[in-house]
């Protein structure tokens, strides 16, 4: 019976093309209308450490979460076989390089000793030996995994002979072996695979030809040996155009649609890809018509990044910067300047594992409270967080709208999970897009009361508009000149803070928090990338007889206190469970601070890997049925 839903895993050393395999598969699948979501896990390393792509494919819906075990795995090296020994479903399929059979787990220099020792412990438990062969046997015999052993060496030699290439060049085609073998088992047709190859290598004819040659040869052979045991049922998803993009890309697209004109950045994982995306789209020319252009500015550090973005914003350019924890830590002082000077600027903040350099390429949600209170003194700011690519797209636009409407810095929080995952999503809905420049003025004259106190939000003639304005980080009068008068101080302080009250009135609470489901057994409280796993877990739990709901927090300043308090009260302290990628349960603390409602049940994960549906389901059961207070999740390598 064809499958509706499938999970797969591609593993290999960093730099060996695992991402390429995933991309080609994704395009091929999208071409046939399947929904795909893939998470990319990699070390802070350029070449050699273990990396993998974890993918969910669906014929009936756009996937939003991941889980284990997987039905299909393809590994180019021994390290992957070892690392993911326990990730494959009984009855699942495994493609691997039979040439690695004799390799011992103790002989892999790129494997971290902690990982090795941990795996060895488990091997002992399960009576598995130390070689790849031993693992394969275990999988085959004990777990009923179907094994597809390939000789990478023979395959690549064949290719080398045909195209007369060096071993190094041939190594690049390890990714081809993987996606081709997978396509074979998935029953993907040759055209869609070709489509995937062409899309990935656009313009590089020779590479396309070689890939197609190798892929079709492998597909044919493997299919003749194994058939199409993992064939998918035809897609029933009713969409005719699918955008394939990462979270980074989607935010970049949102910024472009939203009118971004200046983006500054200093390279940092996992934010830099957004800026690189924008750099490739600096000229907005459509059919020869000039729609404008963007300046992407690589600065000497993150202090210069935010300072230059604020400067650009003063002249009327919609401006933003994108960064991650260490970079944001350096932006804190200038954030306060923007607050004090009622200057719009957007900081797109991709959270990764902290503290300090932490786990630079892993995901986390541990910077929320920091962003809420960063910088000395008090000033209004808006903090919003996106949980999936759709949210990320519209939020990128709204962040710029809020920044100009309320004349405040806006922090748009995302996490590495979202940033580096690849999604298939529908084209955005133009009906939901508005550009709101608030009281920005492009024509004015004379000395201007930039900080006119008569209303909390003053008209904002940009520098260059013809008006003359002054700005200062010192407390100032309506013209922006320094004054230390205590009464002016109080008025200006309150003027600034009142803008938050206005935002709190104007932005509907329903946009700031969203309740999914209505089951009364429990309420999950989460934010960011937790959303997908939470929603999918609800469905699974419902099948198990537990009816719950998920409250998704979208904006933390201004916090939707009334609505959230009401919902939380309707559950009571015992039935609310915070689900977060941090140890402090930061969103729950922010909630307590804003509502006085104290949350006492937690499901937390801080390994740097995403929350998987199966472990979330289990944790909820342990809390709701087992009476535990807190469950710490740790699944995933």
């Amino acid at each position, binding site marked *: 019976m064809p499958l509706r839903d499938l999970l797969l895993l591609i593993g290999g050393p960093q730099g060996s093309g695992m991402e390429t395999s995933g991309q080609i598969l994704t395009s091929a699948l999208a071409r046939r209308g399947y929904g795909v979501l893939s998470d990319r896990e990699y070390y802070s390393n350029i070449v050699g450490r273990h990396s993998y792509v974890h993918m969910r494919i669906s014929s009936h819906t756009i996937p939003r979460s991941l889980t284990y075990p997987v039905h299909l795995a393809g590994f180019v090296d021994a390290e992957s076989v070892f690392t993911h020994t326990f990730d494959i479903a009984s009855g699942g399929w495994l493609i691997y390089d039979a040439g690695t059979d004799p390799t011992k787990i103790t002989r892999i220099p790129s494997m971290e000793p902690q990982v090795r020792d941990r795996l060895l412990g488990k091997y002992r438990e399960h009576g598995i030996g130390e070689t790849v062969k031993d693992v394969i046997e275990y999988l085959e015999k004990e777990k009923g995994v179907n094994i597809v052993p390939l000789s990478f060496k023979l395959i690549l030699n064949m290719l080398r002979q045909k195209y007369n290439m060096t071993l190094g060049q041939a190594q690049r085609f390890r990714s081809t072996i993987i996606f081709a073998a997978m396509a074979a088992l998935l029953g993907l047709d040759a055209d869609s695979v070709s489509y995937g190859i062409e899309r990935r290598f656009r313009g590089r004819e020779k590479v396309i030809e070689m890939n197609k040659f190798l892929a079709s040869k492998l597909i044919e052979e493997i299919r003749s040996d194994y058939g199409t045991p993992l064939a998918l049922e035809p*897609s029933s998803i009713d969409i005719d155009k699918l955008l394939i993009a990462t979270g980074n*890309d989607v935010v970049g*697209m949102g910024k472009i649609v939203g009118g971004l004109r200046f983006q500054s950045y200093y390279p940092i994982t996992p934010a830099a890809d957004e800026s690189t995306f924008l750099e490739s789209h600096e000229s907005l020319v*459509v059919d020869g018509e*000039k729609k404008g252009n963007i300046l992407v500015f690589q600065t000497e550090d993150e202090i210069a990044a935010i300072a230059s973005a604020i400067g650009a914003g003063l*002249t009327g350019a919609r401006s933003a910067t994108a960064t991650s924890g260490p970079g944001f830590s350096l932006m804190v002082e200038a954030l306060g300047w923007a607050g004090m000077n009622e200057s719009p600027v957007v900081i797109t903040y991709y959270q990764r594992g902290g503290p300090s350099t932490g786990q630079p390429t892993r995901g986390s949600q541990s910077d929320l409270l920091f962003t809420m209170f960063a910088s000395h003194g008090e000033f209004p700011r808006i903090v919003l967080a996106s949980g999936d690519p759709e949210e990320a797209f519209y939020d990128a636009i709204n962040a710029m709208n809020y920044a100009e409407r309320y004349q405040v810095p806006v922090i748009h929080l995302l996490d590495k999970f979202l940033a580096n995952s690849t999604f298939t999503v529908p084209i955005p809905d133009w009906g939901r897009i508005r550009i709101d420049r608030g009281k920005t003025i492009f024509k004015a004259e004379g000395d201007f009361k930039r900080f006119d106190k008569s209303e909390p939000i003053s008209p904002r003639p940009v520098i260059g508009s013809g008006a003359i304005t002054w700005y200062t980080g010192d407390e100032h009068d309506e013209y922006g000149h320094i004054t230390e008068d205590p009464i002016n101080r109080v008025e200006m302080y309150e003027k600034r803070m009142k803008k938050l009250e206005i935002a709190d009135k104007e932005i509907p609470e329903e946009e700031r928090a969203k309740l999914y489901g209505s089951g009364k057994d429990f309420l999950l409280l989460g934010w960011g990338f937790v959303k997908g796993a939470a929603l999918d877990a609800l469905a699974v739990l419902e099948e198990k007889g537990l009816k719950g709901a998920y409250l998704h927090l979208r904006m933390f300043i201004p916090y939707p206190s009334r609505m959230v308090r009401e919902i939380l009260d309707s559950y009571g302290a015992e039935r609310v469970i915070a689900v977060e990628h941090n140890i402090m349960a930061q969103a729950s603390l922010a909630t307590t601070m804003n509502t006085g409602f104290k949350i006492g049940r937690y499901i937390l994960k801080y390994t740097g890997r995403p929350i998987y549906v199966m472990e979330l389901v289990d944790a909820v059961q342990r809390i709701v049925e087992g009476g535990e207070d807190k469950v710490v999740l740790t699944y995933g390598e």
Partner: protein
Amino acid sequence: MASNVARYKTDVWSDWCPGCGDFGIVAAMQKAFAELDLDPAQTVVVSGIGCSSKTPHFIHANGVHTLHGRAIPFATGIKLANPRLTVVVNGGDGDLLGIGAGHFVAVGRRNVDITVILHNNQVYGLTKGQASPTLRRWEQVKSLPRPNIQDAVNPIALAIASGYTFVARGYALWVDHLKELIKAAIRHKGTALIDVLQPCVTYNNLYTADFYKGRLYKLEEEPGWDPIVHEPSIDEIDEKVARAWEKALEWGQRIPVGVFYVNPHVETYEERIAKLNPLYQEKPIALQEIEENGTPAISREDFIKLFNKYIVEVDRR
């Protein structure tokens, strides 16, 4: 002309100490602006934090008084977003060469068309007279409990090493001379530094007006002095840099002021961007229309074309 100067004055009281060299710098700026007939609304004075950085409030033009050490990156954002603006940076020696040294170096690598006026008083004025990065080793100005044990940074040498294309030194009390330097720096296309020796009457009891009297001399009055790179050949650049460097090291009985080095042949950052992306020149990004009545300038159709590479047409077969 004289009356024109009034156009650049504000009615904000300058709360500098009576006799402070900063008054001379502001006067020179106002005169220079008047003689260049700058439009105050299209001119921006950007500063850091310090006594010197209060400057924008006293000049009738757009003023952006930023953070300690960060005037240059703020100014860079302003200039790049709207290259039609004339952008002048004022900062202290602590501001530009201490906490801000990283930006001071970086802007030289870009040659952004801005003018940097360094108020060099050898002390941290506004925080009550600590040693600034231009105070020399073993010197001890009034407020120091012990002599200074850091070496001085040489602003002229550092600017040249960092790629500034116009490097000069002025004296705060020689207002007309300084005015000419400011005019030349603003007219110059590229990053310009004017290191202004600025007596701090309250905290600097070493580098006083008295000290400078008799020691300062004008480079332009030296026979044969020509700081300008005429042909952009490596050889001429080498020679001009070497001579400027030598003058930069001169400090003691004779201290040079005037123009040390000018290389007008280096593309500005703005020109470099425009080379890669000609659209940049047509209309400052700051002034481009991005919406009409709230509807984005990029339509759904535009989106599909722009991001075509990312879009898959589903073909169900």
